[in-house]
């Protein structure tokens, strides 16, 4: 690959402003966050391919599974190749995914959409998601939670942008499409949308690729003394490689807590619109209109995004272990309240769901800083990539749990609050498991630490 992508061309000098790094990271995460806005054209694809919701939903599932797999497999390459090369590659895969999927839509070949958006796009998602993480942590050693929270907030923000933008573009490409729930744009309009998004995201991610810089060796922000960093046994100054990390109980405890937190969050996100309508259903009619239910989904998106930034930044102050005790412990209590008294007042239901989803987002955003605390910065990007397989697993388990329980309770459109209790209490159980896993996390044993000679073989600035 061309030398301008190499890590050596991205190392900044001591006077480089670190506040130029978050916009580069955000440009990538805002782009790949589109993956959570697929519902805009879901109905259109169902109509176009003459199939059901399930085969179209598979496109999203493949993308999320590929996200986890590519982040796990390519994490070390991302860490050692540098963020510019990773962002460039992510942009190519993400844009190619849209273009191949557009070809599949134009030729009515669903497998091409699976290959394009699902496989190629999913690889772009995985590389793009982890590409700025270790770089940000090294630029912000004083506030790693804030730094990664900012970037990963972008992943939540990407859906907020892509959803209304896609709606407007579909209306422009197909005047017959009104954007309301249930209306479908024709296939050529969706194909044009995919081409447009592919080009726009490619340009945005290239901006990130060409402005990202790696912190110089031994970088410390002005006015910050690195010796103040290790204030707790839970924050290491040692280095643990990605290969060693997966041999530690800490890695698998983190995997379990991320899996539990994400599965529980998906339990609400997956069913948000019908759930609020069902909770306030009385005698066959619901007090919540479809439009209001759409507003509830929007509010949850805001909670998801805000939680990533607010809670992750808070973890810099109170510590990672304590913030995860809040996500999982307080989250479990809120879930119990939602299941037992959520149907009494709409405002209470909305408030509980909002806070629960903010914890879901916070769990994602705080993970890189938790990994840095336990394993050091040596290969934190690669370790993060491997932990993200928990997300892929939760992406499968969450919908299976919620849909499985609800299918057993009755027909969609006739469910009431009580029908959700088995699923919600299952989520409470998962959160308790995650809470216990977090409690069991201790500092990593010294036998897993790299010797200074070993860690010095890593690229400078990867340390």
């Amino acid at each position, binding site marked *: 690959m061309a030398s301008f992508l190499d890590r050596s061309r991205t190392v*900044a000098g001591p006077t480089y402003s670190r506040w130029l790094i978050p916009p580069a990271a955000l440009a990538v995460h805002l782009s790949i966050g589109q993956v959570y806005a697929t519902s805009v054209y879901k109905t259109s694809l169902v109509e176009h391919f003459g199939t059901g919701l399930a085969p179209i939903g598979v496109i999203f599932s493949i993308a999320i599974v590929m996200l986890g797999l590519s982040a796990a497999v390519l994490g070390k390459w991302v860490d050692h190749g540098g963020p510019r090369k990773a962002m460039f590659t992510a942009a190519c895969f993400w844009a190619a995914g849209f273009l191949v999927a557009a070809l599949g839509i134009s030729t009515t070949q669903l497998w091409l959409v699976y290959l394009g958006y699902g496989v190629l796009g999913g690889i772009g998602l995985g590389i793009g998601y982890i590409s700025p993480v270790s770089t940000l942590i090294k630029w912000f050693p004083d506030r790693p939670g804030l730094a990664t929270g900012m970037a990963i907030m972008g992943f939540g923000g990407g859906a907020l942008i892509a959803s209304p*933008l896609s709606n407007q573009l579909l209306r422009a490409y197909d005047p017959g499409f009104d954007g309301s729930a249930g209306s479908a744009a024709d296939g050529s309009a969706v194909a044009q949308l995919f081409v447009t998004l592919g080009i726009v995201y490619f340009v945005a991610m290239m901006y990130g690729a060409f402005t990202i810089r790696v912190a110089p060796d031994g970088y410390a922000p002005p006015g910050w003394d690195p010796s103040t960093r290790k204030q707790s046994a839970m924050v290491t100054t040692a280095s643990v490689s990605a290969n060693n990390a997966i041999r530690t109980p800490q890695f698998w405890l983190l995997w379990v807590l991320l899996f539990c937190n994400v599965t529980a969050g998906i339990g609400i996100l997956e069913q948000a619109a019908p759930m609020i309508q069902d909770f306030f259903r009385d005698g066959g009619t619901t007090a919540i209109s479809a439009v209001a239910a759409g507003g509830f989904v929007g509010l949850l998106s805001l909670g998801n995004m805000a939680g990533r930034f607010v809670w992750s930044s808070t973890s810099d102050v109170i510590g990672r272990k304590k913030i995860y005790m809040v996500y999982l412990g307080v989250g479990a209590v809120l879930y119990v309240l939602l299941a037992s008294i959520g149907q009494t007042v709409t405002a209470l239901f909305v408030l509980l769901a909002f806070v629960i989803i903010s914890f879901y987002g916070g769990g994602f955003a705080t993970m890189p800083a938790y990994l840095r605390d336990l394993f050091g910065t040596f290969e934190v990007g690669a370790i993060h990539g491997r932990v993200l397989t928990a997300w892929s697993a939760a992406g499968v388990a969450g919908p299976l749990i919620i849909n499985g329980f609800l299918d057993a309770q009755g027909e969609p459109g006739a469910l009431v609050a009580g029908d959700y209790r088995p699923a919600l209490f299952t989520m409470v159980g998962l959160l308790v498991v995650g809470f216990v896993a977090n409690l069991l996390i201790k500092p990593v044993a010294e036998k897993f630490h790299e010797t200074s000679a070993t860690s010095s073989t890593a690229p400078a600035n990867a340390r």
Partner: protein
Amino acid sequence: MTSSTSSAPAGRNDPSPATQKVLLGVGWLLVGVPLVYGLVQTLRRVVTLFTG
């Protein structure tokens, strides 16, 4: 694992402090404007939860 960092001096391609200030404004504008657009559009949807 190979090292490719030792070949180039750190900061060789850094823009001047004045240029960095301009880049800072442009960078945050480029990501901030779409984000504000998304937030405003979402808030408009959220309003329907309380009115619709």
